[in-house]
């Protein structure tokens, strides 16, 4: 809505232009947090180099924690962004589906014994099985949303309710433990590499996503369906299928995140694993400046958003905020974001801006 006539950019226009750059929001938030930490306690950025018990070199420090835990969120953010863009809603069952996929991985690895000395199946097989299962559950959500036209949040409520129960069922409510150290590499460190593995996994997922966006029309189709379903249909797309597909892709992301999650513990706790992660994933998408009502998306911004959230979480931890109290602070951030990005407020600000600039001219 900028007027081209004005030679000088008014403050409001400059502000608007900056705001219109989607990636601006997560970057600004990141900078804000970074500067805050720098002032509050520069030791936040300290990275120490050490040797862990397995004799492998590791880097540790707050930044590593962010890299480590932000990665699983980034993986989910990829899928969640697509679902949000295509369906204009969010999947609240990802935490529960992670429990299911994680449970499947352990089940395949452990076989009938919950404490096997050796793995009963190669890790890759377990992972692939988990992928298939997670995608089936994603498909279930997808069918409800795309073909039964149930609002995404409510459709996914079903798995949200049942997911952790199903996960417990899969392992007969036992808590299997994998003793093979190789399994713990995915959520920890690969010997010899001092950077947490989840970061590499996230990088791989992002790379795959980037390739998919480059070599297929996934991005274009998803955005088109999200922006204007009717027009997409008239141009030969099948909007229902695109929505369905986005949920299946999210299922795949969930399986990858589940691998990291169970690998961290070499075990699983059905009621706690990936708890509330769906909220963080949605927040990552929102923080990335993507409209939660669907349409245009920016994957990079979402991934940035994921790391920003982890940055925020870690910062809060550092200042001894209890983990249970974190949501209160996050809520404030969410409200701030949605209020800023709500059309009513933006129109209001724009009006004020134009009034000020009018006065300036007069």
């Amino acid at each position, binding site marked *: 809505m900028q007027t081209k006539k004005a030679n000088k950019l008014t403050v409001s226009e400059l502000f608007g232009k900056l705001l219109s750059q989607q990636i601006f929001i997560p970057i600004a938030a990141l900078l804000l947090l970074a500067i805050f930490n720098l002032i509050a306690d520069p030791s936040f950025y300290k990275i120490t180099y050490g040797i862990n018990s397995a004799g492998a070199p590791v880097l540790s420090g707050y930044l590593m924690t962010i890299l480590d835990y932000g990665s699983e969120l980034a993986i989910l953010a990829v899928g969640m962004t697509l679902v949000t863009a295509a369906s204009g809603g*969010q999947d609240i069952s990802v935490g529960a589906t992670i429990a299911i996929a994680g449970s499947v991985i352990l089940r395949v690895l452990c076989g009938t014994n919950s404490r096997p000395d050796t793995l009963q199946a190669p890790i890759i097989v377990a992972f692939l099985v988990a992928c298939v299962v997670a995608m089936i559950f994603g498909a279930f959500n997808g069918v*409800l949303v795309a073909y*039964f*036209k*149930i*609002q995404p*949040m*409510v*459709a996914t*409520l*079903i*798995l*949200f*309710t*049942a*997911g*952790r*129960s*199903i996960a*417990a*069922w899969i392992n007969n*409510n036992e808590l299997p433990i994998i003793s093979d150290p190789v399994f713990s590499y995915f959520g920890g460190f690969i010997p010899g590499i001092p950077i947490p593995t989840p970061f590499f996994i996230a990088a791989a997922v992002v790379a795959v996503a980037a390739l998919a966006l480059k070599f297929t029309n996934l991005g274009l189709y998803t955005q088109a369906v999200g922006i204007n379903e009717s027009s997409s249909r008239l141009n030969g797309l099948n909007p229902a299928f695109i929505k369905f597909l986005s949920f299946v892709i999210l299922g795949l992301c969930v399986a990858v995140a589940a691998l990291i999650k169970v690998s961290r513990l070499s075990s699983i706790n*059905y009621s706690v694993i990936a708890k509330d992660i769906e*909220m963080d994933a*949605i927040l990552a998408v*929102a923080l990335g400046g993507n409209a*939660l*009502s669907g349409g245009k998306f920016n994957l990079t911004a979402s991934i940035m958003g994921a790391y920003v959230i982890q940055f925020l979480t870690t910062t809060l931890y550092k200042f001894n905020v*209890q983990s*249970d*109290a*974190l*949501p*209160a*602070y*996050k*809520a*404030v951030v*969410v*409200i701030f974001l*949605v*209020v800023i990005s*709500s*059309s*009513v*407020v933006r129109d209001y600000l724009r009006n004020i801006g134009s009034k000020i600039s009018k006065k300036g001219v007069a």
Partner: protein
Amino acid sequence: MQKKRKTLTDANLLLTITIVVFFLMYIGAILFQGKGFLKPQTFFNILNANAALLILSCGMSVVMITGGIDISVGGVTALVSMCCAVYLDYHNGNVLGAVAIALAIGLAFGIVQGFLVAYLDIQPFIVSLAGMFFARGMTTIVNTNPFNVANEEFVALKNVRIIIPGMGSLNKLGKYVNAYVEIGVIIAILVVIILFCVLKWTRLGRFFYAVGGNSQSALMLGINVKRTKFLSHLLCSLLAGIGGFVYFMHVGSGAASHAMGAEMNAIASSIIGGTMLTGGVGNIIGTFFGVLSLSTIQNIVSSAGLDQAWWTGITIAAMLCLFLVIQSVVMARKKK
């Protein structure tokens, strides 16, 4: 179409399904699980344990009828419990003060969330998601550790039992025990009745339906849509405050983990009770039976001695799925 035909409307159809399912389930439980379910107290225990859920579900139904959703009610319940507990035990408060706190918390959430949803036009899910985050986080900030309230006045109130005359059963020793309900149940029933009347016989109640049915039409019919939306959220949060206090009276403790997932149970109850997610259709009586169905399932699962706790989650989800699909099919039929 021109004929004057008494057809079962969609709303009534959904309600009927719910009621039938509930009775079938209860009769099935009596047949297969015997003596426990025959005793009236089993039924009243379901009420006692779910009075708070009933109140929350009523509020949820109102919001859903108006076309919104509020997932902060569980968090508000926990916050109310914790604040009241801290007030009673650490600040030597009295029960009246605690009630005031509960109402104030509900009101505050209602005003903020209602304003954001109705006047700033932000999606209700996101607003109430933040509300849930905030309430849960605040609960921990108020007090981290769970504790039982020892305040005598409160404990006395908590233990008040209202005897249901003419109902009772013999216990194991052969002694006749009267059936009873807790105060919370009375409050819940009152809420159900009042809300039923509000929805049926007041202007505001019908506005809820109109706005949920088609907010654009409602606007054209001369209804203040924004105010109606605002009031629906306000009412829901206020009921969450009341529900929170009832919950608190039932458990008698404050804990951050209280009412975990209550919002989802409330939504599920409303859906099972025939409230349409798309808004405009719903009935408090249905919600009442929705809550009963949901809690009866839980009771059956635990009474059956099924040692896996996850059975509850799976059965509830299956039921939810079934009802959602029924709704979707009803909607599809309507469009044709």
